[in-house]
């Protein structure tokens, strides 16, 4: 055995000494249940190689960031996710946010739209405009973006199963504004795999869903080249109760599955990979989260270059959006949520995010009010302008703790990739409920830890205000919204050229059967005001519907 260095002896001495200390009786684990040591030292980074493991910002493997200048060149995009009520209501909120200095839009749709039902469908009852804006046709989309020039802003749309239709609605609005589709910038979430895994807003079974996605990738590469075609999302996986390592591993596994699907569909990896982006959660455990973002970039770069043989560096680098963790907020003492969100947002910035949504303090109670949204936006502006953290790139690099956790998360992710591969890939793993069970177990464990007070959440299981009366304004959606949307649809159906609608839908059905790219057909349907529900219905009939397998 090699002779101990002085530092090793010192370390051993410290370890002996610290054993005699009496620690506070709390859990010394990350929020994901990973052990945290009392101290991290160079011993934890024995094989550390700066060039190999970190490199420089804007260079492989991008651990330190995807741009050479990072936030000195351009701050992250402050993109608050919002949308509610009628398209008119949402249009007003967007104009307010843009006036307040927000730099991108992010559309939240209501559940009916997300599930592909028009506002007047029986299954939409009670859902219209509730947790997002109702969009049933191009007409609604025109209203949402009325007076907002699509060549000047970028728009992110949280839409998955009907992503192709909403993208076409957006393109058609652009056409009406005279904006060429090649100039449009934005993102559709379009990540159906995480729907089966965590978010559960699916329509079609996995196979046809993957076909729609490869159709979108192929179409967008030609027609909307600046558009991010998939936002591979860990956010919802985390919200469903996963650990950080599961969020990281499952998200990247989904991402690789899309890459493989694209390659299998005959596309060159470098034509579509640069348009893939990611979306992560920013949860409570500050350092674990920072390590997660850094590990994510490194894993993506390594796999894209080495496994998938991408040659274009833009295919290697992982750009991502972050949203602070909705599930970390409490309905008790809701103002405390401002502080939680601020720390979570800070971790995302220190982790090098490209865009950020900060939650409003009242989101566990209802849709956020204008005031709450403003505070959330101001939180980001304070981090950007006052805290000084944006002055230098990846300031936590070299921290024994952060680097060792970055390595650990990468290892845990690789272990998961192996398990998924052993199960036969992501879709097979979904079919046997692998992800669903892993997440449900983690969620239950976390809940138990809180209930047994092994984990403290301020205001929830400690520092509770007895007889607290929550006094907070909430935004209410009037039942009139549903009524107005139904009336508008009736008018639309009466006034449009129904023969044309029928003809284009028939063409779409043909394309679904033939296997030709669906997107051009959907765009044609969109232009003559075929509704979202009508377009989806054609595909539902052709592709079938997916049902909840309900794994525990």
């Amino acid at each position: 055995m090699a002779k101990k260095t002085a530092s090793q002896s010192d370390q051993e001495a410290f370890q002996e000494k610290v054993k005699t200390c009496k620690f506070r009786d709390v859990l010394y684990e990350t929020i994901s249940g990973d052990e945290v040591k009392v101290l991290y030292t160079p011993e934890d980074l024995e094989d550390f190689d700066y060039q190999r493991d970190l490199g420089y910002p804007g260079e492989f493997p991008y651990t330190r960031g995807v741009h050479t200048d990072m936030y000195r060149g351009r701050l992250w995009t402050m993109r608050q996710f919002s949308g509610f009520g009628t398209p008119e209501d949402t249009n007003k909120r967007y104009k307010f946010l843009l006036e307040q200095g927000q730099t991108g839009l992010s559309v939240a749709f209501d559940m009916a739209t997300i599930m592909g039902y028009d506002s007047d469908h029986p299954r939409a009852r009670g859902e219209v405009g509730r947790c997002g804006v109702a969009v049933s046709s191009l007409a609604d989309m025109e209203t949402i973006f009325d007076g907002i020039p699509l060549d000047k802003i970028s728009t992110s749309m949280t839409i998955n199963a009907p992503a192709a239709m909403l993208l076409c609605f957006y393109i058609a609005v652009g056409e009406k504004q005279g904006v060429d589709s090649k100039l449009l910038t934005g993102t559709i979430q379009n990540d159906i795999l995480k729907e089966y895994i965590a978010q559960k807003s699916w329509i079609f079974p996995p196979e046809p869903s993957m076909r729609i996605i490869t159709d979108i990738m192929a179409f967008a590469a030609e027609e909307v080249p600046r558009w991010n075609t998939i936002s591979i999302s860990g956010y919802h996986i985390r919200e469903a109760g996963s650990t950080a390592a599961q969020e990281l591993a499952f998200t990247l596994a989904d991402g690789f599955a899309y890459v493989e699907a694209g390659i299998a569909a005959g596309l060159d990896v470098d034509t579509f990979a640069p348009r893939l982006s990611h979306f992560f959660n920013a949860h409570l455990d500050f350092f674990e989260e920072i390590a997660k973002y850094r590990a994510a970039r490194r894993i993506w770069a390594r796999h894209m270059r080495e496994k998938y043989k991408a040659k274009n560096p833009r295919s290697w680098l992982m750009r991502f959006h972050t949203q602070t963790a909705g599930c970390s907020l409490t309905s008790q003492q809701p103002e405390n949520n401002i502080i939680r969100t601020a720390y979570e947002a800070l971790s995302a910035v220190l982790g090098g995010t490209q865009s950020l949504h900060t939650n409003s303090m009242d989101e566990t109670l209802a849709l956020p009010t204008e005031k709450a949204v403003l505070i959330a936006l101001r939180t980001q502006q304070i981090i950007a302008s006052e805290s000084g953290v944006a002055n230098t790139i990846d300031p936590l690099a070299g921290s024994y703790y952060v680097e060792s956790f970055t390595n650990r998360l990468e290892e845990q992710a690789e272990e998961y990739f192996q398990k998924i591969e052993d199960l036969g890939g992501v879709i097979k793993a979904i079919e046997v409920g692998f992800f669903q069970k892993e997440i449900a177990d983690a969620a239950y464990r976390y809940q138990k830890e809180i209930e047994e007070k092994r984990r403290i959440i301020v205001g929830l299981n400690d520092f509770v205000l007895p007889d607290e009366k929550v006094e907070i304004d909430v935004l209410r959606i009037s039942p009139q919204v549903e009524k107005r949307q139904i009336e508008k649809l009736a008018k639309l159906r009466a006034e449009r050229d129904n023969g044309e609608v029928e003809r284009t839908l028939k063409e779409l059905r043909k394309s679904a059967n033939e296997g030709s790219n669906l997107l051009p057909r959907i765009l044609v349907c969109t232009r003559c005001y075929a509704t979202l529900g009508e377009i989806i219905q054609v595909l539902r009939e052709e592709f079938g519907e997916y049902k909840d397998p309900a794994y525990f």
Partner: protein
Amino acid sequence: MAPVSSNRQELLKRFFGGDRLALSRVISIIENERDGYREILASLYANSHKAFRIGVTGPPGAGKSTLVSRLARYYLQSELSVGIIAVDPTSPFSGGALLGDRVRMQDEGVQSGAFIRSMATRGSVGGLAQASRGVALAMDAFGKEPIILETVGVGQSELDIANSADTTVVVLVPESGDGIQAMKAGLMEIADVFCVNKADREGAEALCREIAVICEMRSDRSWEIPIVQTVATRNEGTEELVRAIESHREFITEGERYHLHLRQQIRSDLQELLEREISMRLQFRNGFEELLEKQVGRIESGEISPYEAVDILLGKELKLQ
């Protein structure tokens, strides 16, 4: 036997009038052995149509519920009124149960057309067999036919269910292990039909061959066990499965064999009822605990062996000899 109480009579009247809420309530009475349940069972028995009962069993994750849903859909389309009993295990730790089979029967036609009842195994020996038989009888007397009993796979529960069914389908999947495993688990003895589900997966053919080889080793081969391949999620092979089930049904209902089958069922029913009743009566008999304790003491002190204690208990104390 005591007469049926007046509100129970009212319930039975609603039951025979076709009120599904009354069926649901009757099932609860039987399952929980509430006061008067035996009287109710007796009156249901008198109104039984001897509905055909299909048992479906196999290891967890074999896709049984989806398959049951497909079978139900098929029978519903033939204008039959299907009853489904879906059994899930009770947690030995808490006594609670998560009954999730219903979720996998989300075919809207099945949800509106069939009567689905989830049951937990609840742990008492012989209890499930009797309760599920009672529940099946309730569905039968209500006019449900066929009745499909689904149980999750390994242990006592599927044997109990197999005994209550006319035709038992054992569902296996390529990844659930080999046919040898199934034989060890005692599934060979209860299978009237084998169903290899998820047959689009690797290893399906090999599994079928393996089962066939094992089937050939049986001593009684008057019934050739069919092996059907299905992909329940895509509704493939349902018709073949129904055909196999129906041909077994024809087999057992043929002339003298049917008579024997019925007698066999009645006999095992009766025996089980009797055994359970004796054990219940013993347990609830005054002073039973003390008697037991007394003998435990004697065995512990080395005075007598447990075998002698049984003789003493049955003879001198309980006067059953």
